[in-house]
């Protein structure tokens, strides 16, 4: 867990909408952040322009749909993940993040009325009997970067624990898991760690936890009884990428493979808009080409080789469900020999949850 100073040093001001005031999560966070100026507002649009940036924290309630399908990517295979908007925006400042392009000019937002999303997930569970459901809060923000302030994930874990085949995933680049360890019951909650070799963390994920810290947190989570997942995404092809990624994969051998719910792979990709927002990085001078969804990726034969090698290294540490994020059917066929729907251990992961409305 991070001390309040970590957040106080990052944020300049806190805005809270009146409807978020009665929530326990708001009270907890405001107590920890009492050194910061706190301003009550009726609606988000009352925030002055000078504070429309990620050093402003907005505590509010979600008004619209809080549970949705991962938007996927046109012409690419989607893993049918469901997403919950809980933390919107991120303080970790990774150079490649899509949020650099879209969310930098907005406050980091926390939706404290998590009971709405929990109710919705339970409803989805009931309407799709027997269908495995994977759902997570890490789509538009880091699941745990602010969670030690708000403790919002605990309710999800506890209240969803009784539902079979419901995998609630908290995806993070931090090691902030301590507040979750004692929690019971845990059900099928999965704590997911995005991984990259230290050399890439140091240059591109500067505010995130080190690899050692993330792996240590994963170890704690496993010992406490959680399932964990690992996400090598984005894989960035620095000059010695093979040795540094192989080394990183090998460090996962320390985990009981039965406790690893899944591992995902994704190579570096960006939209044209994001590229314009990004500062110059050496890795951007590699050969990226526009794909069917408009995103730029490494050339197909390059990606295939990356996935083949990663697959080979990962298979060496145990039988763990492995999938690729936002990849084309061609790549799936060339790397796995078939599409995920035909791969036994991926069937559950890729099942389409039909009724979510």
């Amino acid at each position, binding site marked *: 867990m991070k001390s309040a100073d970590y957040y106080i040093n990052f944020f300049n001001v806190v805005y809270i909408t009146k409807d978020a005031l009665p929530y326990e999560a708001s009270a907890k966070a405001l107590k920890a952040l009492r050194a910061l100026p706190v301003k009550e507002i009726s609606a988000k649009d009352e925030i002055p322009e000078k504070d429309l940036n990620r050093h402003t924290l907005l505590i509010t309630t979600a008004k619209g749909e809080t549970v949705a399908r991962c938007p996927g990517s046109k012409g690419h295979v989607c893993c049918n993940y469901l997403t919950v908007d809980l933390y919107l925006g991120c303080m970790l400042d990774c150079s490649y993040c899509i949020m650099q392009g879209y969310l930098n000019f907005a406050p980091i937002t926390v939706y404290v009325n998590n009971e709405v999303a929990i109710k919705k997930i339970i409803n989805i569970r009931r309407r799709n009997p027997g269908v495995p459901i994977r759902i997570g809060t890490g789509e538009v923000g880091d699941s745990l970067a602010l969670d030690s302030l708000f403790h919002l994930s605990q309710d999800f874990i506890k209240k969803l624990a009784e539902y079979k085949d419901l995998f609630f995933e908290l995806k993070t680049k931090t090691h902030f898991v301590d507040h979750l360890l004692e929690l019971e019951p845990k059900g099928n909650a999965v704590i997911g760690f995005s991984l990259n070799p230290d050399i890439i963390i140091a240059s591109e994920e500067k505010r995130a936890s080190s690899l050692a810290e993330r792996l240590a947190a994963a170890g704690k989570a496993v010992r406490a009884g959680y399932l964990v997942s690992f996400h090598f995404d984005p894989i960035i092809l620095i000059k010695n990428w093979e040795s540094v990624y192989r080394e990183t994969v090998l460090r996962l051998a320390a985990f009981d493979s039965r406790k690893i719910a899944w591992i995902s792979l994704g190579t570096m990709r960006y939209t044209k808009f994001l590229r314009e927002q990004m500062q110059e990085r050496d890795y951007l*001078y*590699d*050969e990226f*080409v*526009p794909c*069917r969804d408009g995103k730029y990726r490494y050339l*197909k*034969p390059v990606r295939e080789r990356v996935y083949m090698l990663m697959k080979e290294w990962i298979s060496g540490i145990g039988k763990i469900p492995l999938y690729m994020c936002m990849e*084309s059917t*061609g790549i799936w066929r060339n790397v796995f020999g078939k599409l995920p729907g035909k791969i036994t251990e991926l069937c559950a992961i890729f099942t389409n949850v039909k009724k979510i409305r």
Partner: protein
Amino acid sequence: MIYLTPKELLSRRNDFDLFSSPAGISDQRLIKQLYMPFPVAGNKLIWGFPLIRQARDLGIEQVLCRDFSEFKMHELLQLALVCEDRKGSYSWQEKENIVLFCEKHKLSLIDHDVTALIENHSDPDFYQKVKRYSAYPEALKGLLNKNLIDGKTAERISVLPRLFFQKLLRNAKKFTFAERRIFCSYVFEIVGRDTLNAEQAEKLVRKIFSFDTPLQKIREIRYPKLSDLERRLADYKKQYFRGSGIVLHEPPYFEGNAFTLTFSFENKQQYEKKITKLARLKENIHEICRLLH
């Protein structure tokens, strides 16, 4: 209103001679005095230098002026900008002139709202941008002032060797505006990717401009793997399909699963000829398929 001679107005060096826009009115209008009086402070011209030069060249002895001596220096600059009325279309050279004028006369661009009369949208970085421009090599300034590249590209590539800007300025007509932008990006990215020092970068620049099609050549260097795939495909097309009437289509950037073949026929003979040709390709088709796998 007062009358002053063009000679008098142009006799001394004048800081207000900021703009390089051409004279905007006809000789006849100047001769017949069909113009707004020229603003002056004392006998110092504030705006209209190209017109006064035009009047001088026409032999006009006196021009109608209005005296604004009571104006402060920043008001005179604002007046000049209002008369010029070219918000959003000032060249970098003109913007530099304005900034230097403000520095010399200790005027604040922000306090006196000067940038609002220069740019379409207020730009808090205006001063920094112009100062960066001031530090550019002359050839890069030339590219900007001739609208051959945009400000953002100039800023990005400003670290490249001067030789590059000189060669680009000389060869500007070989590219469209968009091509020039891409060309600059490629050169910049290759220098960054291959960590070329100044000498190596100059060598690259010389090499690139020695080709008739520098853009194509630089793309091959910037995208070696993609270019190799394209070259191999072009060879296959030449070897197996040239003159056959059968066209092989690859997915864009080889980002797909399948090739497509198209051909047309008018009768049975033509159809059989195409099918026979395709049947013969069976032995080699795997070479082409390998490009996607």
